[in-house]
């Protein structure tokens, strides 16, 4: 069976990440005006889901991850005021964000929550998924760094989240490490094991240029939702460029309900101009995907390169060797300091 046979006629929900994952590349400094401008454009283009949060989720504003220009409350409220059809979603990571912060987000107009954990630690999400359901939100279990565990183990973790009440489960390639076969195996495994009513999602990073290809493999294996970012604005070399995914979907007969040309215009006219530089798989981003490192480590690794005269690539490889996972940004500076000491640079 060809790929086309597997996907033609399928319905797909596209979920834009540029106002959350893109916050990383913007060092969490997107202005309210920019957010409102981009969100209303995406809404007008028919994108059904738009994520708006600090890059590290609710409560992510910190010295460790970078302070947001505005609070999540301000961002979500501003976007909620202009968006007509799209659902506003938020990222929520137990251990970073608290339940009170999720209540505030729901009050401000968020109607969907991605409750995220490392791919093997789903049992820290019970309280947060529970509250998501209690608040009536579209509640998603978001298993990050999914390349770091086997399909069987990922499925076990997904079943836990489904048991806590999540109605959608994501396989998240936070490092942009996966190749299409990895995606096929994981999404296929989830589809087989989870309830028919449970939706499946896939979130890619474009560090090895595989965002669109991997997302297609995910759709073929049964994914109902694909995350991407207008103009690719996201951590590392960015997320799957949403307008590219929409164009390919249209060619292959996947129904997204999105107005392709309008989405292309949002990417070109509203998102591209705010970026200091367009996302590109430079040597450090390729290293993320090649070695399997959390994509947001890129920025602080580059800072450490400037500060200590080490190569960002060396630092990222060392972080991969030490099996650091999402959220451990503090270990970038620590690792760089230790490497600089060993090399007599400090």
């Amino acid at each position, binding site marked *: 069976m060809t790929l086309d046979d597997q996907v033609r006629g399928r319905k797909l929900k596209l979920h834009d990440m540029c106002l959350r994952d893109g916050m990383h590349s913007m060092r969490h400094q997107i202005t309210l005006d920019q957010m409102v401008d981009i969100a209303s454009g995406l809404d007008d283009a028919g994108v059904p889901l738009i994520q708006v949060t600090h890059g590290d989720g609710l*409560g992510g504003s*910190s*010295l*460790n991850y970078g302070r947001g220009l505005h609070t999540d409350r301000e961002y979500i409220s501003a976007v909620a005021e202009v968006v007509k059809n799209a659902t506003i979603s938020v990222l929520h990571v*137990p*251990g*970073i964000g*608290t*339940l009170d912060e999720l209540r505030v987000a729901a009050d401000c107009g968020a109607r969907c929550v991605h409750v995220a954990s*490392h791919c*093997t*630690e789903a*049992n*820290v999400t*019970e*309280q*947060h998924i529970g509250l998501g359901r209690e608040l009536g939100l579209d509640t998603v279990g978001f298993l990050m760094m999914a390349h*770091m565990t086997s399909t069987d183990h990922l499925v076990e973790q997904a079943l836990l989240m489904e048991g806590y009440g999540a109605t959608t489960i994501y396989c998240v390639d936070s490092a942009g490490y996966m190749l299409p076969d990895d995606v096929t195996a994981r999404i296929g495994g989830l589809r087989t094991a989870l309830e028919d009513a449970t939706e499946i999602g896939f979130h890619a990073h474009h560090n090895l240029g595989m965002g669109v290809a991997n997302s297609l493999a995910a759709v073929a294996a049964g994914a109902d939702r694909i995350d991407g970012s207008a103009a690719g604005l996201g951590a590392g070399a960015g997320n799957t460029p949403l307008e590219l995914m929409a164009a390919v979907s249209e060619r292959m007969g996947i129904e997204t309900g999105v107005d392709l040309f309008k989405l292309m215009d949002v990417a070109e006219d509203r998102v591209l101009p705010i970026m200091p530089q367009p996302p590109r798989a430079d040597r450090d981003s390729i290293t993320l995907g090649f070695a399997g490192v959390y994509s947001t480590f890129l920025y602080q690794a580059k800072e450490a390169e400037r500060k200590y005269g080490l190569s960002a690539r060396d630092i990222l490889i060392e972080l991969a060797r*030490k*099996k*650091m*996972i999402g*959220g*451990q*940004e*503090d*270990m970038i*500076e*620590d690792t760089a*300091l*230790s490497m600089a*000491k060993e090399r007599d640079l400090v």
Partner: protein
Amino acid sequence: MDKIKCAIIGPGNIGTDLLYKLLRSEVLEPVWMVGIEPGSEGLDRAKELGLKTTAEGVDGLVPHVIEDGVQIAFDATSAYVHADNSRKLNELGVLMIDLTPAAIGPLCVPPINLKDLAGRKTMNVNMVTCAGQATIPMVAAVSGVQEVDYAEIIATVASKSIGMGTRKNIDEFTRTTSAAVAEVGGAAKGKAIVIVNPAEPPLMMRDTVYCETVDEPDQEAITASVHEMIAAVQQYVPGYQLKNGPTFEGRKVSIFLEVEGLGDFLPKYAGNLDIMTAAAVRTAEMFAQDILDGQLELEPVKENA
């Protein structure tokens, strides 16, 4: 020498590690282990080590408290059941050392405020969280030199060292730690971030402490204060180490720590368990010493008192 008799509630990782430490204590003697699952590994182990056990929760212990002379109890269960446990035992004059994030009693981080608790006649002391025990001494080391506007801590623990209690109560864990970073650490505002890392072989507990001082940080004084505090914690947690820092960038002070456990029950990577149980034992020992010296008499807490 006489010892003060203790009960441990919760025969899981923390309770068992605690038991090993209490068996070495010169002033405390563990006599009861309280669980809720008959035949559980933790209860069986306690029995083998000579303790009386019950699988009927605190209600199974209550009838024996007076007869067996239990004066101090450690609660290593969960925030949800702690208030009930504490009330039932306080009524019998038992002092509660709370290792859950319930935080109904005053917060205790030994090198910072243990001495202040001595005269307060409190019947419930909360040990904050493992992340709090590991990081708050550093916040206090900085705030002891000059005013701290904001302190933020990142605690990374090995997946194998974190039990279901903490996982199910991760919100209380995060909030209790944040509050204590400010309250006990002496910062105007506090934030805590907790990461569970599943790497194999398991990683040692790592903790990072960021402080923002109100004025330009006095680098020399802060560095000296941090080293002094490291030594104070090492008195009861020998594996508490400064890995990097303090480094200074504008008003930001960064301190990178590693906590290696003693390996009493769980392996050495579980420094988070070790620092929690070691701090609890140190706290209980101070009260026990005061009881033995006749300086402290525990009194039953009357309901609605």
